[in-house]
């Protein structure tokens, strides 16, 4: 994937998060990554690396500190992709 269309990013994230989540949750843009999905930190870091490669970006660790929901992660990816 090479573009930074927000909807496509959301779609990719929901798909990947769905396969990683331990809980049976309907994942939407407003889903909370930590409290609702029960994904451990290592799986989440691996997912971030996969996303970085998919969009050919690097996501600063400190930017992730402000990310709680799928929407916030998608917005961050979109912002970094636009700036690169």
């Amino acid at each position, binding site marked *: 994937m090479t573009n930074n269309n927000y909807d496509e990013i959301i779609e990719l994230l929901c798909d990947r998060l769905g396969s990683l989540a331990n809980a049976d949750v309907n994942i939407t843009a407003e889903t909370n990554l930590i409290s609702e999905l029960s994904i451990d930190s*290592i799986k989440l870091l691996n997912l971030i690396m996969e996303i970085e490669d998919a969009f*050919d*970006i*690097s996501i*600063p*660790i*400190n*930017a992730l500190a402000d990310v709680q929901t799928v929407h916030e992660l998608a917005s961050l990816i979109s912002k970094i992709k636009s700036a*690169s």
Partner: protein
Amino acid sequence: MNLLEKLDAAATARKAMLPEGVGAFGIPVEEVYSATEARIGERRVLLLGTNNYLGLTFAPECIQAAHKALDTEGTGTTGSRMANGSYHGHRALEREFADFYDCCAGIVFTTGYQANLGTISGLVGRGDTVLIDGDSHASIFDGCILSGAEIIRFKHNDMIDMEKRLRRLGDRTETTLIIVEGIYSMLGDQAPLADIVALKNKYKCTLLLDEAHSLGVLGETGQGLSEKTGLQKEIDFITGTFSKSLCSIGGFCVSNHPQLDQLRYISHPYIFTASPSPATIASTRAALQLLRNGGNLRKQLWKNCTQLYSKLEETGYKLGPEPGPVIAAVLDNPKQALQIWQRLLENNIYVNLILPPAAPDGKSLVRCSVNAAHTTEQMAYVGDIFAKLYNEILQT
């Protein structure tokens, strides 16, 4: 959840991992007999979980120097380097470190942790980038957080991943600080420094090398990985600690960039703390001389490292990729690691237990630290007990 309830939740999680009564973390050492032996509870144990790589904690030269400084300069400086805390010894030690690394500038910090915190937060700030190894020590990570720079991690020792991330930075590489370590504290492996230097030059970055675990251990005179690889002149900043091979407490940064001196005026971890005590500085200066001339100590250390690493490898333990003073057995889960750790202690051997999330990639480690004062017989005993536990715990 209020603040105290958050602490209660963390305590519950910790207790779930470590049953009550198991004191693996912060174990009380009652008496220290030598560089290799101490008393824990009623047991006289072999110390295999310290960072005393050259075995100098009881070196007479260091003890005498510390005594003299206590008698003549008192117990503490009671002030910052910025105010009244820059004694003759602090300035002399800075010159001695600069001379040791053939650099033009050196700064002494109160702890090794602060050396990384103070150097990193002084060198980079908002709008800059730090590119750090995924297995970086907490002092590096915390220094990066304090700096406000963007933190990008690359996969541990993975040069393909590192270059990918440099390429993605585009023209921001000129304001990027790469930070790597001579020897990594978890698995004891070394950074591929020649490849890192090549990338640093290709992308015109600045490079900081933390020699905390490699000082005294690698290189002919013990400078660390920079000396072992002959790449001293390619490293922009070298940091390190006094609390491992130098057997005291404190830290340093050296550089051939004269701008290093400016950190004294902008680096909070340097400014807003008391300077090291005169006795600490005096013993460190004596230890640095012993370290520089410690070729035989390094030979003995490496003999011990190779002996234990080979025995554990031959037994079947999963280890870090190369022998060194840090030898970590990687276990499948925290329960296994805890069992091995407890049984080692029952056999009078103290090692470090490292459980997730402290260890990288969710690993559970039983980590040995070898030193030059260990004897061949002690190494053989430790190897034999590890082999016995492998058969009893991991083969069942």
